[in-house]
């Protein structure tokens, strides 16, 4: 166990964690930030996606100690003063989920994707999001939600 300082959603969080502990485990089990989900632990499902310096990463395969001091954004950090992020708005509007378990990861993947690809084609959306699994099969709605979020961001 060693102390690590993480910069999560703009706040410095000091935690004691094992040197081989994943960022996912630190977020969920030590910081009680459970919006980020465990789905597979092998980087295959995307449920644990967070942003590091704005880029989407799988927190289950990321060691917490490696991202000390870097900007970590989780699903809890998207909403500001009760106002949803446009991607959250778009997912809600399209009702692009059923059980909702993949939703945090889908939204974080989308936020990271749109930052680098503001005007994605449908094929680009599908290609980029292909690392995220929605076992309920709401993919067509998620594609619509991502497209909608891109449109909303352009109008802002």
């Amino acid at each position: 166990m060693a102390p690590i300082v993480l910069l999560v959603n703009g706040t410095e969080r000091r935690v004691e964690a094992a040197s081989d502990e994943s960022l996912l485990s630190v977020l969920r089990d030590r910081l009680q930030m459970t919006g980020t989900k465990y789905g597979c632990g092998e980087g295959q499902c995307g449920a644990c996606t967070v942003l590091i310096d704005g880029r989407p990463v799988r927190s289950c395969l990321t060691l917490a100690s490696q991202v000390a001091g870097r900007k970590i954004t989780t699903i809890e950090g998207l909403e500001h003063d009760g106002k949803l992020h446009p991607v959250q708005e778009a997912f809600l509007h399209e009702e692009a989920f059923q059980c909702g378990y993949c939703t945090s990861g889908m939204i974080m993947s989308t936020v990271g994707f749109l930052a680098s690809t503001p005007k994605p084609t449908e094929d680009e959306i599908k290609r980029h999001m292909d690392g995220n699994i929605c076992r309920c099969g709401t993919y067509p709605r998620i594609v619509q939600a991502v497209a909608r979020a891109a449109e909303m961001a352009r109008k802002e």
Partner: protein
Amino acid sequence: MPKDIAAWIHISENNAVTVFTGKVEMGQNIRTSLAQQVAEELHVPVASIAMIMGDTDRTPWDAGTFGSRTTPTMGPQLRAAAASARDLLVATAAQQWKVSPTALSAADGRITDSKSRQSITYGQLMHGQQLVKLIESAPPLTPVVDWKIAGTPVPKVDGRAFVTGRHKYSADLSHPDMLFGKVLRPSGFKATLTSLDTKAAESIPGVIVVHDGDFVAVAAADSATAERALRAIKAKWSVPPQPSNADLFSYLKDHVTASRRDEPHIVGSVDRALSDADVKLSQTYTVQYIAHAPLEPRAALAEWQGDKLTVYTGTQRPFAVRDELADAFHISSDKVRVLVPDTGSAYGGKHTGDAAVEAARIAKAAGKPVKLVWTREEEFTWAYFRPAGVIDIRSGAHKDGTIVAWEFHNYNSGPAGIGTPYNVANQKIEFHPVDSPLRQGSYRSLAAAANHFARESHMDELAHAVAMDSLDFRLKNLDDDRLRAVFQAAADKFGWRNRKPSATRGFGIAGGFEKGGYVATCAEVEIVGGQNVHIRRVVEAFDCGPVINPNGLRNQIMGGIVQGIGGALFEAIRFSNGRILNPYFSEYRVPRFADAPEIEIILMDRRDKPPMGAGETPLIGLAPAVGNAIFSATGIRLRSLPMVPNGLPSKRA
């Protein structure tokens, strides 16, 4: 089910409505659709309703959330309770105001006397007291044609909790004194523990090792330490030899359990009819074991207070899990409370309380609350599977397309959807239960997916054998109006009559009736590079009576189609000698974005019929429609699910 309104509905002084049901939400959207139905009959806004679901101490007993039963049973139950409650509220106000109940109206959570202009909220009228009255035998239900809230696309009631990550699934819950538990898994099924050394694990500060027979587990204050302790345990297991995929289908046919055999369904004489038939076919279809792989693995948080046990867990059967826990610890069921947070999906895979029992065992030994979250590997290995099966069909038809003989044997996969909706004068249909080599259980649509795959593929084969259009052949042998209607609707929208198959483009159709729902599915596939099958377009018509929430229903039908793609094309559990060989998403392929076709859904919305569920039946037409489409392009008939786990096989002579 309790007959008192108070068991189902409560109205607080501030007019908040609480509804109690033993059903649980796991993505099928019943938290919303049931609330809509209560709102409709009670005459209150949906937003004023809070649904308490799947809490064994607070909600009426319920067998479980499965079998597409919520809409046909719980919906009417809550509607009746709500309509009876409205009657009671009107009668109470009438008594208080000394007017005739017929002079009063109930709307938006208030009773109003239009003459005197008196008005009172339900809450003010009842002061939060219980609604003491029995549910009426003929409550004043709103006719479906007059629905204003039910039947409309009300948004998911707690959607915001999901897009913000605020919703707490079982795995997200915590308790201040909680320990994290991990279970030591055997190296194979039916294993016995032959040696165990837990010293290294026990020497880690704060680690508790639980050892009881073949059950070995650890607990620690944080998950990383619990995982380290688990890795430090040295155990040896003895695993007996067991079957593998290679000999699966012969194994199933050789291991029929005669004791549980059902009587076959026999009409006329198949043998006699076959001897007269112009065309005779005999084919075998197979389906592999597949996994539910719900994205939220099994998880539980268990806490003992003296001899009282409370467990939060994602299960489809909270009351059965309560009883499972009571049995496991030899306590009475009233000492156990099971609460089900809205769950990260199940698809039939969360009927049992495995994680709940394990968490409670560790918690009992540790003397502290314990949270246990299964890993993906555990979920793929130690849950249960959609049964594998073998289906043999013998059939005969006249040249004019009349089916005269139909013999259907299902080994192991199950009896759901085993019958045929087509008119056949001579039938023999039989389910043969088998001692399954793997633990198996319910899966979305049960065996209806396998039985429809076999039947609707075979129907396509018969149609080709008598040189008829596959749709015409079905309609010729079909009287059921509702099934005819979905076939026609799907075919029309799909453009069935104008399809132009080629070596790279195929079109297929399939349908059926199951769990009160009628479905017809048309699929268009593209064969890429002579090898890869891509489903490009699916049109599906579905009739489940009147639609409660068209937005939620479309979502669920779409999900059923997409989930069906996995079992149709590539999902299969590989196993050998008591071990699962592909217990990871990297090795067990599930449908992803790239697999999802363009999907068009037609809702028949039969408001003249009773409402039925939609969680299962929408997926049963997909596999045969796709198989038939592959045949139309390639001439290759695929009779095993999954059909193309490694791409198209080379064309057989």
